[in-house]
């Protein structure tokens, strides 16, 4: 009488590269951002950083209502992923959603106005930081509920499939979200229906104050892909080029009917969980410092200048443009009117 057999390795679908090499053009073709893509990524990261820094400053000055979760430190993920997306592609996002929206093409002025709760904001002042959406840009919404965007992304992927569109959906979420029932149900559904969805887990090592090893035992969240028999890939989330390459493979695969993947980006938020939280209660200053040494913007800028030989002036122009855009965004927001009271009663039903 033999004991139960362990699941033999051979039968376990160990996570694998996102793309069987044959299904794609040669890696060289997809793996490196073009000149234009590289500049776009850089500009995106700068726009996110500048937006978040300005928003934090305004918040701390008591000028913004509600609360804010900033994306500072994680810019390479949104930028490296979304550069592959067309306007028709869709994303779902999180409470920490500004970066995703910017990377998917959102306007900073409309975002800033929303943070101020103004009528001109993306949601007419009714959503705020945690609910920025732009359906025309495929931004299906930030979300105040951790994990909730994941099944919604599956539904968006299903639409694309049923409508015969070659679009993909990217679901962004955190390490903490990977412990929600919604994660499990959403990935399983996308897997069995072979939907064009790329699940991007931004593992920034903490869910609020809770270190990843306290909330899950698995070392790499990407290994959870095995539970759905889809590929799981780990990427350095501080390196936009690595994100670019891995996401590019996954998105292309999904677009071509290859089904979902789970892409884990190892990253870090430089600031507290929300603006106002220092993080000191649960993170060690040295740890934060170590990660800041790998600031994704600094790393990418260095790559642009030193490895790819972009002229300093070109990069500096972008930086100046972004600064200007931020100033204009704040001005726009500040000069925008408050919503009308009757607006509160609108938009409940279509």
């Amino acid at each position: 009488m033999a004991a139960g057999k362990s699941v033999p390795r051979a039968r376990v679908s160990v996570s694998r590269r996102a793309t069987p090499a044959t299904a794609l053009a040669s890696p060289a073709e997809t793996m490196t951002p073009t000149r234009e893509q590289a500049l776009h990524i850089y500009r995106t990261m700068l726009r996110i950083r500048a937006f978040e820094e300005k928003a934090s400053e305004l918040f701390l000055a008591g000028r913004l209502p509600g609360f804010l979760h900033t994306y500072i430190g994680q810019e390479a993920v949104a930028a490296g992923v979304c550069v592959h997306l067309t306007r028709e592609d869709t994303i779902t996002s999180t409470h920490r959603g500004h970066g995703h929206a910017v990377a998917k093409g959102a306007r900073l002025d409309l975002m800033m106005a929303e943070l101020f709760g103004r009528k001109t904001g993306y949601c007419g002042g009714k959503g705020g930081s945690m609910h920025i959406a732009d359906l025309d840009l495929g931004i299906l919404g930030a979300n105040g509920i951790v994990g909730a965007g994941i099944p919604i992304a599956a539904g968006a992927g299903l639409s694309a499939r049923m409508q015969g569109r070659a679009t993909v959906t990217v679901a962004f979420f955190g390490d903490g979200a990977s412990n929600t029932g919604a994660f499990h149900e959403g990935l399983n559904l996308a897997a069995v229906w072979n939907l064009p969805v790329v699940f991007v887990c931004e593992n920034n090592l903490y869910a609020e104050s809770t270190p990843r090893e306290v909330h899950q035992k698995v070392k790499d969240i990407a290994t959870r892909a095995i539970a759905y028999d889809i590929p799981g890939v780990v990427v350095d989330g501080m390196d936009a080029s690595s994100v670019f390459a891995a996401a590019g493979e996954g998105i292309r695969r999904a677009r071509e009917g290859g089904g979902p993947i789970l892409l884990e980006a190892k990253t870090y938020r430089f600031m507290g969980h929300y603006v106002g939280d220092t993080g000191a209660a649960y993170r060690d200053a040295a740890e934060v410092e170590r990660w800041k040494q790998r600031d994704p913007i600094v790393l990418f800028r260095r790559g642009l200048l030193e490895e790819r030989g972009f002229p300093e002036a070109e990069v500096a122009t972008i930086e100046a443009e972004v600064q200007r855009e931020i100033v204009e965004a704040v001005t726009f927001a500040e000069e925008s009117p408050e919503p009308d009271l009757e607006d509160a009663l609108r938009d409940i039903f279509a």
Partner: protein
Amino acid sequence: MRKITYREALKEALREEMRRDPRVFLLGEDIAQFGGSYKVTQGLLDEFGPERVRNTPISEAAIVGAAVGAALTGMRPVAELMYVDFSGIAMDQIANQAAKNRYMFGGKAKVPMVLRTQGGTGRSSAAQHAQSLEAWFIHIPGLKVVMPATPYDAKGLLKTAIRDDNPVVFIEHKLLYPETGEVPEEEYLVPLGVADVKRAGEDVTVVAHSRMVHLALRAADRLVADGISCEVVDPRTLDPLDSAAILRSVEKTSRLVILQEAVAQCSFASEVAALVAEEALDCLDAPIRRVTALDTPMPFSPRLERFVVPSEERLIAAVREVCA
């Protein structure tokens, strides 16, 4: 007019709307070859194929979440929760996502989806398979809630719900599926938010929905012998509620009894009572009465279930009391 069952009426609504609009599709547990627990979707797989009649895993949160995502991006999903009792699992997607996306996004999104489910007692299904949870949904702004009592209403309301651009929770009753009623051959719609006076009367208004409409009608028949003329108002849509119809009836009869299968506390019956106490208190000649399930989880034993659920006798007693 031909008579068909509530089940058939629902299926016709699904079939007609799926033929009419390729964006309409179905998803839920065991709805494809099995035809659903109560066989409403039986046969639709054959006509529309597995892309449009989609069996899901046991993942209620993902069923509703996927419907939300599909609705946001141009489809018109009709998702099925096998029992309304399982909505606790999907409640975040229902109440925080489906209901609120449009509003939170400043009106820039539409979520045209129907969540079909069934509830109610009568089959000894016990505490986790016999609830009447409409109050949960009515309480959430952004959801419409429909509970048809007859095959005619079931078909016409489901078609309207599918064409509505908003999330509609459509709650059928497990005991009504085999019930028959007149349903025209030709196409028709029943608008949301319009009550139906199922029986006109003079002395007392009985507001009842879903299966309880039939119980109210039977009781009304019996009460004729007492010389009491009941008006039975079926709101059909609980949200948006046709308050005007209820108030009109109470203004006429001056007496109100509300009958429902759900428990009383914070329920639809409470809402109707509150509405009338706010808007038509002066018309009332007697206290309002709610006839509801007793305040317990639903017991399994048929004897106990019958005791807990409103009966004709309890309704009749309440009507007699307010008419005394």
